[in-house]
Structure formats: C-alpha cells, structure tokens
C-alpha cells in the first residue's frame, strides 16, 4: 500500500463507493444501540427496518449493525455503511448525534436520519416521537391504580426526552391522585437488564406498586412479576409477554411508516432535511392494549384521553403548571411550546429530588 493511497480523501472514497454501487437497489443502513432482541427500543427500530424490506421488496437492501457504542465506534460503523454504498442511514440513538454529523460531512450524497437529536445538516434530518403523550396515559392509569401512592420510575439518562416523560406522567398521576409520590432512579444506561432489574427491585422495596421505565429491556417487567402485586407498562415495545399482569399497558414506538416514507423519498429524489416530531395523532406513538387488570372505568378514561390527544384537542402540558421551584411555567389554559419541551431540563412542581447535575 503506497502512502499516497492512504491519503485518499473521503470525497474520492464516496466517488468510488457510489460508482461501485450504481445498481438501482436503494441501500438503507441502520445503526442500533442495543441488540435487536432487546424487546424494546432497538426491537421496534428493527421492526421498522423489516417493514421497509417488506414494503419495497427487491428494490431495497437493508443492513444493520447492533450494539454499537455511542462514540468513535458509531462513526466508524456509519462510515463503513456509507462506503459500502448506503443511500440512507438511520442512526437510532441520541449519542450518535455528533458522529452522524461528522460522517454526514464526509458523504454529502448520503442521507442521514438521526433519532432523538437536535443537530441537522443539508443531508441530516432528525426525528423523534412525542413519547410524553403516552406517558400522560400511563400517569393517569398509574395514579388511579396505585394503592401505596408510591410510583417508581426508572430513568435512563437525565436528558430532556426522559425528563419530559417523568413530568408528563407525574402531572397526570397527580391530577387524579393528589397524594401520589414519584421515586426516580437513574440507571445511566439504555439497555442493561441486570441494572434495570436492580433498579426495579429497589423501587419495589421502597414501596412502589407501579413501575414506569424509560429503559429498553423487559427486566423490570420480570422483577415486577416476581414481586407479584406491582404493575408495569411496556416501554418502546408492547412487551405483551408480560400482559395482562404486571404489564397493564404500554407505549409502542411505531417507526415503520416514517422509515418507509423516508426511503421512498430517497428513491424519488424528494428527500429533504426535516425535523419530525410526531405523536399519537400521526401514529408514531401507540398505546398498547390496556389489559383487563385495569378497571373498566379507568380504562375508559385513559382511552378518552388518548382520543383527545389523537384529535389534537388535548395537550399533556396544559396550564396552570408550575416548575419545581414554585415559579410559574404555564398560565391557565396555556400549552407548552415545542422549543421548551425539546430542551426541558426542569421538573414540574411537586416532584421530589433534583435532576442530576
């Protein structure tokens, strides 16, 4: 290998790559943070990938790499996909943000889609789902169902997405049950069954009889099942193997329509940078079946709330709401704007504890 060829610029690399792959198949790459069998977050993204394959059949080829650490390794995996001729790459975790931007700079003809981040570029779109709408439904059910008035919450990382979920669940639990108290544990992982199970067990020992999780594995469900009298909600995926009890409902991320639409856009040449944030209305967030462990009247109220959000009549963050420090946030009838929600870094009034700093 001559030294000069080591210096081959990335632009040249791109030229080689695209000419080598000048067939009409559209190649779509996926970078996953967990294993495709996690039963939660990555599992649903992979279902979206399979839906793309099913939709387009021979016209598309998908590739994926799972359990990719967030950092330089992710950058290499993305570069590798781009070199091998991917036309569109979905990077499905917050921590892939800077790597995605770096790689996108080197491959201006490849389109990138980064989930849950905020940095865009000419060839980088971002997309996320309004999970907090689902959290509102969960909070309502949790507030009504809890007997100990202690609700346990397994947080992953204290980023706005997770804080939003905690606030939304708390607001709606509090609304139906003024005595309710949230206990929050930060697991600092998206996927670690052992840590998640430990967190669930600790929360149950502290008296929680409802566990909400913002981590990706089913381990907290298993821990609740063992405890016997604790209810849970599926996270990211339906987790229906734990229904009807302890899992009484779930938030399901449905990425398939988005992935199909974006792949279609690349095929048509109509792909543009977008900032997508869809919720129940658009079908990106779904509420898994509310099981019969939930009394009929509570189930009805929950479904009514879901219907109101789907119709655009109800916003989970509607005033009057105060911040944790007692300062005013939203006036009577006012709803939160997307900018504040996107960067949410405060608790609402009534939540105990501090966001880790």
């Amino acid at each position: 290998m001559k030294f000069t060829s080591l210096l081959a610029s990335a632009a040249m690399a791109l030229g080689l790559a695209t000419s080598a792959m000048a067939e009409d198949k559209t190649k779509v790459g996926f970078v996953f943070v967990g294993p495709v069998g996690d039963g939660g977050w990555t599992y649903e993204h992979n279902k979206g990938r399979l839906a793309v394959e099913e939709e387009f059949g021979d016209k598309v080829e998908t590739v994926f790499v799972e359990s990719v650490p967030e950092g330089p390794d992710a950058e290499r995996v993305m570069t590798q996909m781009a070199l091998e001729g991917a036309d569109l790459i979905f990077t499905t975790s917050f921590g892939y943000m800077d790597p995605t931007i770096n790689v996108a700079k080197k491959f201006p003809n490849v389109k990138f889609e980064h989930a849950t981040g905020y940095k865009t570029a000419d060839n980088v779109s971002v997309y996320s789902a309004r999970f907090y709408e689902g959290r509102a439904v969960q909070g309502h059910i949790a507030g009504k169902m809890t007997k100990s008035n202690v609700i346990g919450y397994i947080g992953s990382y204290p980023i706005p997405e997770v804080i939003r979920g905690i606030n939304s669940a708390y607001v709606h639990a509090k609304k139906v049950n003024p005595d309710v108290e949230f206990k929050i544990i930060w697991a600092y992982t998206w996927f670690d069954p052992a840590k998640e199970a430990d967190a669930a067990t600790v929360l149950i020992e502290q008296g929680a009889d409802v566990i909400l999780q913002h981590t990706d594995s089913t381990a907290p469900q298993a821990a609740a099942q063992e405890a016997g009298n604790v209810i849970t909600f599926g996270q990211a995926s339906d987790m229906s193997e734990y229904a009807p009890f302890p899992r009484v409902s779930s938030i399901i991320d449905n990425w398939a329509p988005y992935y199909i639409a974006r792949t279609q856009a690349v095929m048509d040449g109509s792909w543009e940078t977008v900032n997508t944030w869809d919720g129940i209305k658009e079908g990106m967030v779904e509420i898994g079946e509310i099981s019969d462990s939930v009394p009929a009247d509570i189930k009805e109220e929950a479904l009514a709330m879901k219907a109101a959000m789907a119709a655009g009549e109800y916003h989970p963050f509607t005033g009057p709401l105060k911040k944790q420090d007692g300062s005013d946030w939203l006036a009577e009838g006012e709803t939160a704007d997307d900018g504040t929600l996107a960067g949410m870094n405060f608790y609402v009034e009534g939540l105990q504890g501090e966001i880790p700093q």
Partner: protein
Amino acid sequence: MIVLEKRPQPSKAWSYATPLVAVLATMVCGGILFAVLGKNPVQAIGTIFWEPLFGEFAFYYRPQLLVKGAPLVLIAIGLSLGFRAGIWNIGAEGQYIMGAIFGAAAGLAFYPLDAWYVFPIMVIAGAIGGCLWAMIPAFLKVRFGTNEILVSLMLVYVAEQMLASVSLGLLKNPEGFGFPGSRNLQSYESAHNAELIAGSGMHWGVVTALIAVIFAYVLLNRHMLGFHIRLTGEAPRAAKFAGVNPARLILFCLGMSGALAGLAGMFEVSGPSGVVSIDFNVGYGFTAIIVAFLGRLHPVGILLAGGLMALTYIGGEIAQSQLGLPAAAIQVFQGMLLFFLLAFDLLTNYRIRAARREVA
C-alpha cells in the same frame, strides 16, 4: 492414557507458538460457530481478517486499526509492567476515564483561547488524572495491605459515576440545550488531537503508544528497574535479597499504568471521541488486559496483539453489516481468542505424553 508432564524449563518454542495456535483454533471454532448460524464460515472469517486490511475500503479501515488499536496498546503496555511483577491493576478502565476527564477539563478551562500550549497541558493533565486514580489502590496496598485487584476494579465504577456527573454538570456544553455531554473538542482547534496527516489515522495517541512500546522494551531489558520488575514476578524471594523495595515497585507500576491509561483516555476524548459523555468509556481498559496477555506481556507482542484485537473489532463490524452476523457471535469469537490462548499456554510449561499404564 494421556498425562501432562511438567517441563523442566518453560518451552521457548511454545511460548512463541501459542498465540498463533490460539488464533488458528479461534478461526476453526469460530468458523464452526458461524456455520451453525447459517453463514459461510470461510467468508465470515475472511471478512473479519481480510476486509479491513486488503478489502476494497482498506484505505479507510487501515487507519482505523491505528485509532482502535492505539488506546489498547497504550493501556496494555502499562498493565504489563505491573503484571510482570505480580501487581494486578484491573481498573485501567477507571484510570482511562479519569485521564479523559482531567484532560478535557484542562482543555475546556482554556476555551476559547487559541494557544499552542493548551494541548500539551491537556496531555499532562490526562496523565496526572490517570496516575492519581491508580495511586489510590497503590497507596492503600502499600499502607494497609489491601488487595489492589479489588480496589482498582471497584474504582472503575466510581469513575463511571464521576463521568456521568461531569457530563451532566461541570463539563456540560453550555450550548447543548440541556443535553448531557461536553463541548466537542474536535471543534476547538487548540485542544483537538487531530490526525497528524489527514486520513492516516495517526494522532498523538498512536505516536505515544509507539513510544510507550519502545520505552517499555528498553526499561524491561536494559534498566535496573525493569530487572527488578521481572525479578519480583519470577522470583519474589530472590528479589528481596537483591534489595528490591516492594512498596516503591508497587507505586511505580500502578502509577505508570495509571498514567498511560489516563493518556489513552485523554487522547481518545480530544480526538476520535471529541466529547466527554456518559457513555464515553467502551471497555478499552478491560480489553487491554486481554491484549496484555495475548502479547505475552512483551512490548512487541502487545503491539501485535493490539493490532489483532482492533482487527477483530473492525472486521467484526464489517461482518455484521455485510453478512448479518449478530454482534453476540463476534463477542463470542473474541472471547474464544483469550480462552484458547490460556488453554494452549499450558503447553509452555507442560508437555502432553501418551503414557502406557500397566493393567493388572
């Protein structure tokens, strides 16, 4: 009947041959594993070992081997010094994290000052960070006789908490919309550990790793201290008679391995990674233990082993995306490598003989 017979002298030939035999055995058994998973084993093994070096896109992967291998070699060199003397630093991962935190913090403190001395200060800070973290188990061992394996390992988890804390607080990017993680050092020129020649993968961490290899080689073969290290490991009693001061040796070995791990973390955070984030560490400190043993605790061996390990990582990713191999299968493959190495290591000290037994 097969018996193991202890060799009077460890076999020189086998000590060189075992790494190669282990790699071959890993290829064979890994191939069987891949075949069971329904993949073409020859193609899979070929992809892992061939693609990164000689494949179509080798011009990209070869520099990446340096990027991936350098921190492994740098950490493993430090660890090998202690391992030779029977001082077991298992917590390089924590020292790596602390080096990154110290290094990045030093750099960010100067932000946005544009000056040549920012980066050298970061390098020193990184080494100090790792060294200090390793001095905790060293001091506790010297002073109170605690077990350095446990203390250094436990301190990894403490370091991870510190990492989460600074990502969320002290070093959080003020322009990051409340998201955790520091400013990206890649876009702060004075603090950026950039490639020395664009596209070559050569950054200061790679250079330092190579220097560390040479330094360790000279130390072990030409210097009194190196002799003491080897002597303590091979014949502790003789070392005592030779006047080796065990406390000094412990402080030196742990401190040096900590400093090198800290440097690795610092070069990583200011270069390939760019940001201090909660998930910054990806296990280099633990993988380096495998690299150290795979390289027979010899500096040159470690250099080769680091390259091999980097190869399996990068080749493994290629195999995942090209052939659809699951990530877990690649991890099993890497695990086999260490397993076979340890298994065949037996042959260095023992020989297998077919013994005939008299039947009554």
